[in-house]
């Protein structure tokens, strides 16, 4: 059996210490990295591409679900969530995790989670889509998105949604236009539309969302569509299915 490469993620040093110790002493596991917050987790997972991650759900700034939703990896890890507080456990199952562990983590329970992970590592790829979608849904359930996580090289950063001028689609990514720069973030237009506050963002095209307060002018063009010019001069076209929403804006 292949040795599973493990990363542990928890903002509580003592919690991380215990889970890492259990990972070290368990045959068939190799602890390759640790992270102590969400952004660090993204960096470590992207760099090391582990087979299995143990990730705390409750972390400041970017929590466990947020990490999974923002993660872009070619090889999906099996995910075991760790939670201090039971209410998150149900959500963890909704995100189709391999397992979840409650604090304090016992050796027996840890071993059971590892066994489940070993069974599922082969099929991790098929599970992954469900895990990501579930994590994104869990994030949405907690309110409108306040920022995007973008990757530059092996580092991950936050982009507050208020910095974003407009967004267009590129395959399975979102291109976030922030001033002169463009960032790639994981996600689809549909997800972005659902997650962003409709009071501040408007979808005007199958592949375009604009920040409402960046709109400078709106001109009607032929066939009931609109030409939108942003305050930085960028011009974005609305398409017919979304024209009504633009019209609503003008009222």
């Amino acid at each position: 059996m292949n040795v599973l490469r493990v990363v542990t993620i928890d903002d509580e040093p003592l919690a991380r210490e215990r889970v890492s110790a259990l990972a070290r002493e368990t045959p068939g596991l190799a602890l390759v990295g640790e992270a102590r917050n969400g952004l660090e987790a993204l960096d470590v997972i992207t760099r090391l591409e582990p087979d299995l991650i143990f990730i705390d759900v409750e972390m400041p700034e970017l929590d466990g679900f947020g990490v999974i939703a923002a993660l872009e990896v070619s090889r999906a890890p099996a995910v075991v969530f760790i939670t201090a507080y039971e209410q998150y456990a149900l959500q963890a199952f909704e995100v189709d995790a391999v397992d979840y562990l409650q604090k304090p983590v016992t050796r027996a329970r840890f071993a059971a989670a590892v066994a489940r992970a070993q069974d599922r590592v082969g099929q991790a790829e098929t599970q992954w889509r469900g895990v990501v979608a579930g994590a994104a849904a869990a994030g949405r359930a907690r309110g409108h998105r306040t920022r995007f996580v973008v990757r530059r090289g092996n580092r991950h950063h936050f982009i507050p949604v208020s910095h974003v001028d407009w967004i267009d689609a590129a395959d399975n990514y979102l291109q976030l236009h922030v001033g002169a720069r463009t960032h790639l973030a994981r996600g689809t237009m549909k997800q972005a539309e659902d997650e962003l506050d409709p009071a501040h963002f408007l979808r005007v095209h199958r592949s375009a969302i604009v920040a409402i307060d960046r709109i400078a002018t709106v001109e009607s063009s032929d066939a009931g569509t609109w030409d939108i010019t942003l305050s930085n001069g960028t011009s974005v076209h609305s398409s017919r299915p979304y024209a009504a929403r633009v019209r609503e804006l003008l009222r």
Partner: protein
Amino acid sequence: MTDLAATCRQRNAAILLWLGGLIAAIALGLYASPPALPPGSGRVFPRMSAPAPDVRTLLYMLGIGSIVWFMAVVALPALMWGARRVDRGGNRAQAVIIAGLAVVTLFAASSAIQFFMLFRGAPVRPSFPEYLPAALRQDLLPWVALVGIVAAIESRRRARAGVVEHERLRAEVAEQRLIALTGQLQPHFLFNTLQGISTLIHRDADAADEMLSRLSDLLRELLRHRESGLVTLDEEMRFTRTFLEIAEIRFADRLRFDIEVQTALERALVPLFILQPLVENALSHGIGALAEGGRVTIRASRDAGALVLEVHDDGTGVVSAREGVGLRNTRERLRASFGDEQSLTLSSRSPHGTVARIRLPWRESPSS
């Protein structure tokens, strides 16, 4: 007890006074001679235009006129009793009937006494039923006045009872919410502490012992103060210190903390564990993210009529990211305890860090 005795004495005196008055009125009526009225005129009192009556006639009229007022006083408790029960569902009809019967009986009694006194020795007298309509007309005023008085007293009582009841319910709801919120010794904290103890057992049994003992202190405090919404600042700071001592172990040397409270402020009253979510925030958003750790400072000061509590950290946390469940609960607890007289603000410190500041109206625990 003395209050009760005094009330009883007052009531007995009132009854005696009333009885004496009633007897005097009847005696007056009987002693004085009836004025010469045209028989069968149906009018008890002479018209104002009639010649001025003599003293005996006046006394006679006073006696007869008083009867109905005395009877009205007798009817008052019955009417009050009925009015009080009218809106209590169930026995409503019964209450109305009993009060009504009391009024009718007393009316009949007063009319009978008047009838007897009026036509005593008169050569021609109407039958009692024939006299009743006249009595009704004459005595309408006292009875209407009686009903008016009862209605006024009752509506006043109800208004006051309504306000009192409303206040009571409001206090109860606020209290319930307070208990519910206090019960949230953030589970996140509790279970992370247990995880910490579990970790330390394998590495450092003494440290595990220490952490377990601190957690026990905390839980004891929580149980001890479960009933009360407010504690002294002294107690709150003791709790906060224990809380931070546990965090010190959790953060393994990365946390330093100071508590700066003048002795003069120790008896100020604050909601139980009000600082806990703020401290927890400072730890997880402020210090937790820093590899080199940081410092948390708790400060209390008095500003005119307000107590100001501050939790400083020198971390990098973003103010907007901190508005979680903990802060929401804290705001709600403050509102439940102090209405609009309080505030909770978060602001950034320069060069880095955050201050959470609570302002409360100054209240002090009486010295014990």
